[in-house]
């Protein structure tokens, strides 16, 4: 399955945000997975394959049936992930890793050999490129527009505009 234009990182705690629209580094904590044979540490994401991904992510629950991402979601454009990957070749990557209960699932990957400073730099890059959408804001938008898909399409459009303007800035004179 191809990689879509955006991925989503769920926001579990309000302490992961500095303010309503700014993520801090604690949202991007890479973890060692003992089941992995290679040297990549993981950070779970959902690939934004369709308009239901945000809703799915916001509804994800842990074993105690509590919502995993109470605060909302951060959307990261693939365009920016590729920039980071290009800049930190061999240290940063991403993958699709569908799970039986989550076909959207994937990981951002950080090599175990990455220096602490480079790791922080990559995390800061991810935080800087995140577009934050709080649960309450999404719900309010949905109240105003009962068609969930319309709201999500708007979010995707905003991301696309962001990517487009970002590309223009990068490639501009």
């Amino acid at each position: 399955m191809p990689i879509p234009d955006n991925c989503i990182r769920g926001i579990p705690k309000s302490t992961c945000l500095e303010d309503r629209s700014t993520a801090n580094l604690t949202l991007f904590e890479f973890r060692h997975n003992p089941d992995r044979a290679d040297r990549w540490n993981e950070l779970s994401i959902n690939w934004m394959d369709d308009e239901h991904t945000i809703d799915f992510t916001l509804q994800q629950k842990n074993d105690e049936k509590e919502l995993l991402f109470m605060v909302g979601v951060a959307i990261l454009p693939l365009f920016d992930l590729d920039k980071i990957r290009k800049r930190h070749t061999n240290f940063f990557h991403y993958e699709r890793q569908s799970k039986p209960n989550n076909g959207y699932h994937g990981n951002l990957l950080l090599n175990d050999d990455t220096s602490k400073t480079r790791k922080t730099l990559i995390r800061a890059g991810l935080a800087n490129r995140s577009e934050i959408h709080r649960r309450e804001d999404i719900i309010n938008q949905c109240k105003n527009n009962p068609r969930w898909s319309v709201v999500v399409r708007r979010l995707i459009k905003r991301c696309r505009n962001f990517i487009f303007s970002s590309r223009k800035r990068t490639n501009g004179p």
Partner: protein
Amino acid sequence: MTNFLQETDSQSWPESDLHFNLEDLTKSAKEQANVYGLRGESNPTRQARDIFSQIQNPSVAEQLSKLLSTIYILFRATPREAREMSSIPPLRAHVDEDGSVLLEWIFSDFRVGFNIEPNPDDSGWHLVSDKTHNVYTASGQLGDMNEVITFLLNLIFSNI
């Protein structure tokens, strides 16, 4: 000059609205800085000091104390007008899962941060700018704190 790793898309220092360039690093605050009013932090390290109670590792605590003191002293040493006319946000601190401390200064167009690790050789600083400007990242070891903080404060005052 501070040694650091600089990375941009263009392989050269950006020449857009941001003023990140080598010449500026030796200058103090620019006169053309935007007028934000008197809302800058008088002590941007105050909030970060609250984190000490959560730090387990003595080496991390010692380095953090030295870093915050250095930032405060050098911040106070910058021209008063520059401090008052700029909008320096508070330095935010977080204890990471591995016991290290992350410090971040988040500005509208860029962020400057520090990672304080149990082994001082692993501690470092970083700069990430993006979103509305050319992508620019730089990082380095903390090493000589005076030199690093002077470099970063000059850069901050030149770009806010």
